[in-house]
C-alpha cells in the first residue's frame, strides 16, 4: 500500500473515532435528559423523598447538596487561596517545598472513597460528630483542597513578573502586592477554578456516603434555626445528597418509580454541572474584561 493510501485510511479512522466519542456523549446526555426531564416538575423538586411508594421528590437531597457545597466552599476557598499564595509567592526553592508539592499531588490523586473513609474514621468516629453535614463538608474540603490550591498557584504564577515589580516599586510589601495587585488580576481564573471545583463537589458521592450519611431526616423548611434537629440549617444532622440518593435508591431498588426518580435526579445533577461550567466560562471572560480593561 502506498504511503498516501495509508495516510487516507489513518485519517478516516481518526475521524471515525472522534465521531464515536462525540456520539457517546450525545447518547449519554440524550438518554438522561429525554428520560429524565419529563419527570422533573416543581412538585418533584419540592416534595420529600419516599422509601416504599412512588411519587416521592428530592427536596431534602437537593437542599443538602447545595448546603454541603456552600459549607465546604466556605472552608476550602480561604485555605486554598492562602496555601496557593504561599506556594506561589513565599515558598523557597528547596527540598521541603518539593516535598509539600508532592504531598498536595498525592492528596489530589487519592481515590475519593479513601478520603471519605478517612473522614468517616476521623470526623464521624474519633471526633464523635456522627454522620453529619459538617463531617461531609470537611471531607469534601479535603477532596477539593489540592485541586483548588494548584489552581490558585497556577493562576498567580501566570501573572507577569512586571506586575510584582510594579507593586514593589510603589513600596508595597510582598503581601500587599499579592493581595492588592496580583489577586485582582488573577481573579477571573481563580473564579473559573472555584466554580469548576464546585461542579466536582456537587456531583461527588463516594466521599459522602460514610461522612454525611445515607439518610435524610424529615426537614421542616419553615424552621431556619440551626439548633433544631429538623431545621435545614442544622450542621449536625445526617444529610443524603442528590448524588448519594441516586446511588442509594439504585442499590436498594425498593421504590417502585426507581427509574423515573433516578433519571430525573441525574438530569438535575447534569444540568447543575452544565450550568456551573457555563457560568465558569462566561464569568471568567466578563470579569477579566471588567478588571483589566482588555477588549
Amino acid at each position, binding site marked *: 500500500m502506498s504511503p498516501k493510501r495509508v495516510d487516507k485510511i489513518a485519517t478516516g479512522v481518526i475521524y471515525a473515532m472522534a465521531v464515536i466519542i462525540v456520539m457517546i456523549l450525545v447518547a449519554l446526555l440524550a438518554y438522561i435528559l429525554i428520560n429524565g426531564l419529563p419527570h422533573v416538575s416543581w412538585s418533584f423538586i419540592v416534595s420529600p423523598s419516599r422509601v416504599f411508594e412512588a411519587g416521592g421528590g428530592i427536596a431534602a437531597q437537593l437542599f443538602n447538596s447545595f448546603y454541603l457545597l456552600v459549607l465546604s466552599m466556605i472552608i476550602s476557598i480561604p485555605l486554598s487561596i492562602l496555601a496557593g499564595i504561599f506556594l506561589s509567592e513565599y515558598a523557597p526553592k528547596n527540598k521541603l517545598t518539593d516535598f509539600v508539592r508532592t504531598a498536595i499531588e498525592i492528596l489530589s490523586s487519592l481515590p475519593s472513597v479513601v478520603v471519605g*473513609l478517612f473522614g468517616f474514621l476521623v470526623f464521624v468516629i474519633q471526633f464523635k460528630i456522627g454522620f453529619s453535614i459538617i463531617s461531609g463538608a470537611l471531607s469534601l474540603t479535603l477532596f477539593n483542597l489540592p485541586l483548588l490550591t494548584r489552581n490558585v498557584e497556577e493562576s498567580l504564577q501566570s501573572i507577569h513578573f512586571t506586575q510584582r515589580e510594579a507593586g514593589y516599586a510603589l513600596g508595597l510589601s510582598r503581601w500587599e502586592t499579592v493581595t492588592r495587585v496580583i489577586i485582582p488580576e488573577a481573579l477571573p481564573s481563580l473564579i473559573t477554578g472555584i466554580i469548576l471545583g464546585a461542579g466536582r463537589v456537587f456531583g461527588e458521592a463516594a466521599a459522602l456516603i460514610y461522612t454525611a450519611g445515607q439518610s435524610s431526616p424529615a426537614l421542616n423548611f419553615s424552621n431556619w434555626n440551626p439548633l433544631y434537629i429538623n431545621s435545614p440549617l442544622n450542621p449536625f444532622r445526617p444529610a443524603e445528597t442528590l448524588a448519594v440518593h441516586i*446511588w442509594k435508591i439504585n442499590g436498594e431498588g425498593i421504590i417502585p418509580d426507581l427509574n423515573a426518580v433516578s433519571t430525573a435526579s441525574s438530569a438535575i445533577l447534569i444540568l447543575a454541572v452544565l450550568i456551573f461550567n457555563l457560568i465558569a466560562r462566561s464569568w471568567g471572560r466578563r470579569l477579566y474584561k471588567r478588571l483589566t480593561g482588555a477588549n
Partner: protein
Amino acid sequence: MNDPIRESMLKKSKAAKRETFGKTISFLAIAVIVAVVAAIFYFVASKGISTFTQNGVNFWDFLTGSTWNPGSKGADGKPLVGALPMILGSFFVTILAAIIATPFAIAAAIFMTEVAGKKGTKILQPVIELLVGIPSVVYGFIGLSVVVPFVRSIFGGTGFGILAGTFVLFVMILPTVTSMTVDSLRSVPRHYREASYALAATRWQTIYKVILRSAMPGILTAIVFGMARAFGEALAVQMVIGNAFTVPNSLTTPASTLTSVLTMGMGNSVMGTLSNNALWSLALILLMMSLIFNLVIRWIGNKGGNTK
C-alpha cells in the same frame, strides 16, 4: 528621651507587620494541608495493619487467599480473608478500561492537534469537558440501566461483571487521558513536524513516526493517570460489577473490586472487629496503589526528561 523619628525607625512599620501576618497565615494553610496528608496515611495505615498485627492474619495469605468471608473461619481455623478476588477485579477493570480508552484518547488528541486543527478542538474540547463533568453516580446509573442489560442481551447471564465495569470506566477515564495526551502532543516542537514534511513524509507518517514518538512519555503519563483514576473509582464500578466475592474467571460473571467491597461493607461491620479491620486493609492497599501510580508517573517524567 522621646524621639519620634527614632521610635518610628526602630518599630516595625504597619506594612511589615502585615507582611509577617500574611506570610504566617499562608504558611499555616499549607501546613494544614501537609498535616492532612500525613494524617490520612497515618490513620488508614494504622487501621489497615491491625488485621495483621492484632488479628494475626498472614500478610501473604491476605493477598493471595481467594475466599473472602471475614465473618467465618476456614477448615484450618484461620479467618477467611483472602483479598485476591478484589485485587484481581480492580486490576482487570483498570487495565481493560485503559486498553480500550488509549486508542480513542490518542485518536481524539491527534484529531484535535494534527488533523482537524482549530475546528476539531472547537468540537471535541467541550465534549471532553462535559464528559469530565458528568458525576460518577450518573455514569454508574447509566451503566446499570443501559450497559448491564446490553451485556446481558449479548453474553447472557446477569450482565453484571468486569465487562460492564470496563465499559463504564472507559468512558470515565477517556476525557482525562485525552486532555493530557493533547497537552503532550501540543508540546512537540513545530520544527519536528516541518522537518518531517520536508522529507516528503505524509501526515500519518509524520504523526506515527515523529509526533507520537516524541510525545511518548507524556502519553504514557496520561494513560497511567487514567489508570489511577479507574483504580480508585468507587460508586460507578460498584453499581455494575455485581459484587460477588469470587476470583473472576469470566468477564461477564459478577465480580468485585477493592472499592466496591469498601463501599458495600464499611457500613455493615462493627469497628474493631476482624471484618472491619480487613476492610481497612483493603483501603490501605488502595492507598498504596495510588502512591505507586504517583511514583510511576514521576518515573516516566524523569525518564522522558533524560532522553531529550
